[in-house]
C-alpha cells in the first residue's frame, strides 16, 4: 500500500460513460476538474465519493485505498471519509440547518455534536440561522449549510460539485471570497468540479481539463490557459486564436522560431521539441494581441504586426471584444479585446482598418497531431 499524502485517482471504463482519468491532489491543494457538460466530471467525482462504481480504477486517500477494482476493494460511500457539496446542495429538507450539520456527525460523541455543529455553522457565517429549514434559507445560505455539513464529517477529502452554479452572480462572488478564505484553514485535498473556466482560474491551484471522460491536461491555471498541450485543450479553455502553420526556421540571433503562417512570417518563443519544416498548431491568448493605437504609437508595433479590417465589435461590460480579418488572409480571424474607452477613442467599429501585434512571448507552439519528429 502506498503512503502518499493526498488523493490519487485513476478511473477507466469504456462505457456507458467513457472514463480515462488520472490525477492527484495534495493536502491543502484545490484541484479543479474543468470541462463541458457531459465530459464526465461529476461521474469522476461520484467515483471518488463511492456513489458510482467505475469498471476499472483506483482511488486512494492518504495511503488508504477506497477503490481498487483489481483487488476487489470498493468501500461503500458511508465508509469513505469524504465531504461532498452537491450541485443542488441536496440538503435534508425535513431537518433544520443545525440538524443537517449534525446528521453528518455520526462519528462524534452525541453530547458534543450540537456544540461542534454550532461552531461549524459559525465558520460559514450562519450563526443565528441554526433552526431554519432549507426552504427558509436563501440559495447562498443553503450552499453554506451544504459546505458546513460536508466539513462536519471531518473528512479527509472535500469534493465540490459545481457548488456555485445555483446562486445569483452577486452571491457567487461573495461565496468565492469565502471559499478562498475557508480553504486556507483546510489541510485536505479539495476537488472542485466546474464548467466555468473563470471560476477554476480564480479558486484552483491546479486544474485538469476533461473531455469525454479523459484528462487531457493537468497543470496550473496559467499553464493550461496559455500553454495548452493540444488544439483540443486550447479550444476547451476558450482560446480562440488557434492557427495552423509550419516552422520556417530558427533564428539563432533572437533565439526565436519563425512560423510560416498563411504567407506571413510570425516570430514565436522557441521550443526544443519541434524542428524546421514541421507542421504545427499555434495559439495566442487574447491578452497577447496588442492593438496599434492611433493616438499613441509604440515600439512594440514592430513585433509581428498584422494589419486587417475590423469585422465585429461586441461590448461586454467595460471591454470590447473585437474580430479582425487580417489583410493577408481574411479567413483566419484574430480575436482580441481592449477596454471600451480605448475602442471608442481609436474609432474602432466594423469596417475600419486596424493593426495588431502578436506578442512573440504569448505565442505557444504545439506539434500538430502525428507530426512529432520521430513520426516524420
Amino acid at each position: 500500500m502506498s503512503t502518499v499524502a493526498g488523493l490519487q485517482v485513476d478511473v477507466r471504463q469504456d462505457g456507458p460513460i467513457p472514463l480515462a482519468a488520472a490525477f492527484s491532489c495534495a493536502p491543502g491543494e484545490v484541484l479543479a476538474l474543468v470541462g463541458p457538460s457531459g465530459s464526465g466530471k461529476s461521474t469522476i467525482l461520484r467515483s471518488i465519493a463511492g456513489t458510482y462504481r467505475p469498471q476499472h480504477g483506483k482511488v486512494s486517500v492518504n495511503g488508504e485505498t477506497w477503490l481498487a477494482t483489481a483487488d476487489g476493494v470498493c468501500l461503500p460511500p458511508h465508509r469513505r471519509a469524504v465531504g461532498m457539496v452537491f450541485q443542488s446542495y441536496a440538503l435534508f429538507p425535513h431537518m433544520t440547518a443545525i440538524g443537517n450539520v449534525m446528521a453528518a456527525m455520526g462519528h462524534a460523541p452525541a453530547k458534543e455534536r450540537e456544540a461542534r455543529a454550532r461552531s461549524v455553522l459559525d465558520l460559514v457565517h450562519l450563526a443565528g440561522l441554526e433552526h431554519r429549514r432549507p426552504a427558509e434559507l436563501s440559495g447562498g445560505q443553503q450552499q453554506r449549510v451544504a459546505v458546513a455539513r460536508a466539513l462536519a464529517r471531518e473528512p479527509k477529502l472535500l469534493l465540490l460539485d459545481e457548488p456555485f452554479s445555483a446562486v445569483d452572480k452577486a452571491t457567487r462572488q461573495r461565496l468565492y471570497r469565502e471559499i478562498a478564505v475557508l480553504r486556507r484553514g483546510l489541510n485536505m485535498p479539495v476537488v472542485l468540479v466546474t464548467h466555468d473556466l473563470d471560476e477554476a482560474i480564480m479558486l484552483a491551484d491546479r486544474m485538469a481539463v476533461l473531455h469525454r471522460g479523459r484528462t487531457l491536461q493537468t497543470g496550473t491555471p496559467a499553464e493550461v490557459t496559455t500553454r495548452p498541450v493540444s488544439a483540443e485543450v486550447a479550444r476547451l479553455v476558450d482560446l480562440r486564436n488557434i492557427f495552423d502553420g509550419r516552422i520556417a526556421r530558427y533564428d539563432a540571433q533572437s533565439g526565436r522560431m519563425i512560423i510560416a503562417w498563411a504567407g506571413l512570417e510570425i516570430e514565436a518563443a522557441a521550443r526544443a521539441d519541434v524542428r524546421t519544416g514541421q507542421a504545427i498548431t499555434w495559439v495566442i491568448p487574447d491578452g497577447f494581441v496588442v492593438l496599434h493605437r492611433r493616438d499613441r504609437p509604440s515600439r512594440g508595433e514592430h513585433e509581428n504586426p498584422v494589419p486587417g479590417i475590423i469585422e465585429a465589435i461586441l461590448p461586454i461590460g467595460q471591454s470590447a471584444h473585437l474580430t479582425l480579418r487580417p489583410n493577408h488572409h481574411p479567413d483566419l480571424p484574430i480575436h482580441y479585446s481592449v477596454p471600451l474607452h480605448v475602442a471608442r477613442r481609436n474609432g474602432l467599429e466594423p469596417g475600419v482598418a486596424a493593426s495588431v501585434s502578436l506578442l512573440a512571448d504569448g505565442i505557444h507552439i504545439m506539434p500538430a497531431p502525428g507530426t512529432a519528429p520521430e513520426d516524420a
Partner: protein
Amino acid sequence: MDWTALLLSLRLALLTVLALLPIGILVGRVLAYRQFRGKGLVEALVALPLVLPPTVLGYYLLVAFGAASPIGQIWQTVFGSQLVFTFEGLLVASVIFNLPFAIQPMQRGFETIPADVREAAACCGMSPLEALAKVELPLAWPGILTAMVLSFAHTLGEFGIVLMVGGSIPGETRTIAIAIYDRVQAFDDAAAGQMSSLLLAISLSTIALTYAFSRRIGRRLG
C-alpha cells in the same frame, strides 16, 4: 348493529396495515430506486388486484389456500388448522388484495426523494439502514401514510374476496361489509343503515385526517 363484525373488521384492517407496512416499504423502495429485468412484470403483478374482479381474485385465493393446494397443506402442517374460512386466511387474502394500495403510494413516496439527497445521506456517513430511518422514511412519510390509510379503508369495505375466501362465519370471518349485506337480505333495513352510516363515517374521517396531515407535512418540507 353487529358490534362483533365491526370489531372483526377493525382488527382485520389494523393487522393488514401492520403486515403491509414492511412489505410496502421494501417492495416500494426497490421499485422506486432499482432498475432490473422484469420490473414491468413485477409492477403489473402488484397492480393486478386493482383491475381484477374481486370474485376472480377470491376464487384463485380460495383454490390456492384450499386443503388440496400446497399452500393449504403447508399451513395445515405448520399451524394445524386450515387456511380457508378462517380469520388467518382472511388476513393473508387481505394482505394480497391490498398490495397495490400499499405499494404504489409508498413507491411514489420514495420516488419523490431526489437521488442526490440519498447520496448525500451516504456521504454524511450514514449506513443504508440509518439513511432509511433518518432521511428516506421521514421524506417518504406522506406516501407511506396514504398507503396505510388506503389499505385500512379498503379492507373495511372489501366484500367479494372476503365472501369467497372467508365465507360469513360470525366472529371468525363475518366482516361489517358482509354483515350489512346479511342484514339487507334479512330485510333489517334499520341495522343495515346504521352500520352503513358508521362505515361511511369511519372511512370519511380517516381519509380527511390523512389529507389534512399530508398537507401539513407538505408545508413543512416547503
